[in-house]
């Protein structure tokens, strides 16, 4: 395999992984606070359509990303209000959110089908982005650097700051956290909002980073893979990075398998296309077989918190 192809594959892989990574990071924080939001896919779709629409109308992808994050956070607040304030079932509400996001994005996106948008300009000078080797570090969308920054920001927040400690405490034992005097509901609202913002931005990566046009249902179930990644990573941000890139690599192979000849042809491209999903199922089965992994889950994950007074 020649070096140009390897670099091309890496660059594509990093791009394909970024929406997964962003959405999964958000969900990781949500789950660390003890809430299970299965609506990641719906929030991603909402972010994608809002991000596209704002970028198309204003011509500024930065505004598009901001709007996508804001839209994701807004949609997640519906979930937060239903589950945290009205104690609705988290699983059912999350599923409803996904259905809502799919419907909303399809309806709202209809008028944008086939319209082009401007993408981010590179933030690095040409001699770096066009250098045959160094472009592996520099020829990426700003969203890629943002996602990498967020991996370390989330990791630092959870383990080095007091607010992160409180968030973990709320997910670990909500009633104890309440009796010490922390507001479980407020912390969870915050976490869910952050998760919604990240999922929105992650969704906006599809039109603003991968394919610069509007296609209905363009996230293609990546929200579900993001959910699986959180479990796969055992709720650790750095392991999430590795997991997201692994899934990105599998997805990328599909594209290159189609283009390349030889050995790749033996496996039909449909199988390549289904590999990320098969891998998701495999990973989840492996994890549930290993009892050890389950002990790293936040103890109050998915349980509603109802204050005793």
């Amino acid at each position, binding site marked *: 395999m020649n070096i140009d192809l390897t670099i091309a594959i890496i660059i594509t892989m990093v791009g394909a992984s970024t929406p997964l990574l962003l959405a999964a990071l958000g969900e990781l924080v949500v789950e660390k606070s003890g809430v299970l939001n299965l609506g990641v896919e719906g929030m991603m779709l909402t972010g994608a359509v809002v991000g596209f629409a704002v970028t198309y109308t204003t011509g500024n992808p930065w505004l598009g990303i901001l709007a996508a994050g804001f839209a994701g956070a807004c949609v997640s607040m519906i979930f937060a209000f239903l589950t945290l304030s009205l104690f609705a079932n988290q699983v059912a509400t999350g599923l409803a959110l996904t259905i809502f996001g799919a419907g909303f994005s399809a309806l709202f996106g209809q008028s944008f089908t086939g319209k082009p948008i401007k993408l981010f300009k590179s933030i690095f000078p040409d001699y770096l982005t066009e250098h045959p080797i160094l472009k592996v570090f520099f020829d990426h969308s700003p969203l890629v650097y943002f996602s990498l920054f967020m991996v370390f920001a989330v990791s630092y927040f959870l383990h080095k700051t*007091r607010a992160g*400690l*409180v968030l*973990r*405490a709320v997910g*670990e*034992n909500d*009633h*104890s*956290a309440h*009796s*010490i*005097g*922390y507001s479980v509901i407020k912390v969870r609202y915050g976490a869910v909002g952050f998760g919604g913002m990240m999922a929105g931005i992650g969704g906006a990566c599809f039109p603003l980073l991968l394919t610069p046009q509007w296609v209905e249902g363009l996230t293609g179930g990546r929200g579900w893979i993001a959910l699986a990644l959180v479990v796969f990573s055992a709720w650790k941000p750095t392991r999430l990075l590795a997991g997201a890139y692994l899934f990105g690599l599998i997805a990328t192979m599909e594209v290159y398998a189609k283009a390349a000849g030889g050995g790749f042809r033996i496996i039909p491209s449909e199988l390549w296309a289904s590999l990320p999903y098969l891998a998701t199922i495999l990973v989840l089965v492996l994890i549930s077989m290993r*009892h*050890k992994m*389950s*002990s*790293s889950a936040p*103890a109050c994950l998915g349980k509603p918190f109802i204050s005793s*007074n």
Partner: protein
Amino acid sequence: MNNEQSLRLELEGIVKAFPGVLANDDISFSIKKGEIHALLGENGAGKSTLVKMIYGIMKPDEGTISWNGKPMNIANPKAARALGIGMVFQHFSLFEAMTVLENIALGMDEKMSKKALEEKVVNIMQKYGLSLDPKRIVSTLGVGERQRIEIVRALLLNPKLLIMDEPTSVLTPQEVAQLFNVLRQLSSDGCSILYISHKLDEIKELCDSATILRGGKVVATCDPKKETAKTMAAMMIGTSLQAINKVKSKEFSDIGFSVNNLSLRGAGDFGVSLKDISFDVYRGEILGIAGVAGNGQNELQLVLSGEILLKDKAKITMNNIEIGKMSAKERRKHGLCAVPEERHGHAAVPEFSLNDNAILTARNRQNMVRAGMINAKSAKQFTTKIIDEFNVMTTGHGASASSLSGGNLQKFIMGREILQVPDVLVVSQPTWGVDAGAASAIHQALIDLAKGGAAIVIISQDLDELLELCDSLAIINEGTLSQKQKVGVMSIEEIGLLMGGVHGENSSVSSSQKEVMAQ
């Protein structure tokens, strides 16, 4: 300094009502500086509600709480801590997957660096002789050590009043002695202590004064040193305790239930492995299995009741039938009934009616199911019988299990199993959370069941209960069961040492424990 100023805390006319109950009815008492004041009462007397109001978790409907002579409105636990009120909860509010230090940091209101906090923690632990490794993960610690985390957490705030809610219920006698030393030292430093308990001997030993609650009202304030345990019990319960009617020095002949060289690997990271456990229980005998929580009691209960099946059916036998491979349902058919420790979701389905809960375990032995159809009439009869005979406070057989208070549900569950007249009964914590009157009724029912020829195994952390109830006793520690001995042969100290096992950090404890084991 006059008397008024030396009062740390003063409660006047505190009233708190919940839908259907008046939890606190016009409660007034006061605590002096440096005083160890007991709050004594049965389950449901209103103790917990009262301290929750002092600690700011709930607000009183009426009445005033004065702090150092000034009326205060304690809005939340943070405000309570700011005044200097610390609290050690009965059920520890700890975060299992976090370290000791992280747990302590969570309880701190003022911000400080990890290093400064660690230094402070180590200082406090040295001052009061509390040993604890700040870097350990909580889930790996024993109960006594967990309580120390709570105490350190409270002490870091320099409390002027420390509330201890049933602190000794899960401790070994040695750990209790250590705790009392810490509390006395605190009191001599001027910190008042509100000590909530229903253990009369402890209150006599530790406390300077006692307020006794019954049914949400103050019934007496007394000096426990001048009272006997009996007189305080009478004030607490209202009527004199019914003495247990137990046949002394029984002789047994037939083995009803036996466990032979049972070993089992613990599940997951925190499960305890059972190591070569053997014991026989005679028909008519009550065997108590004592031990500090988390030493294999859960695993043993699950194996005996049939929730965990064994590979070798001969490891457990009853009436000479090998039952090691039988499911819980088959064991029930053969006459082995069981009551697990956890009431909600294990012994009973909270959302189901009492009727349905009775059907779940008694359907075969009480002929409630015929050809797959539930016989509603016999189910109702049986449920009503439980409610009547065990004096379960409920609106009727159709009430949901979750509508019952913990103690009442426990009475119902115990009644459900005892009234099936099993040949073998395995019970965990038969009177956990049950008030003294109901506890003695349950004890009497167990003794009567044994008199009828049943072999009974009681797994409990309440040593007093076991000593009162059982014919013989064995102690479980780290999954190993000691030799069974007649009650009265082992001294309390020996039992305590066996229970302490490796959880005691005093090396002389573990060496003398080995001596006891060797004997």
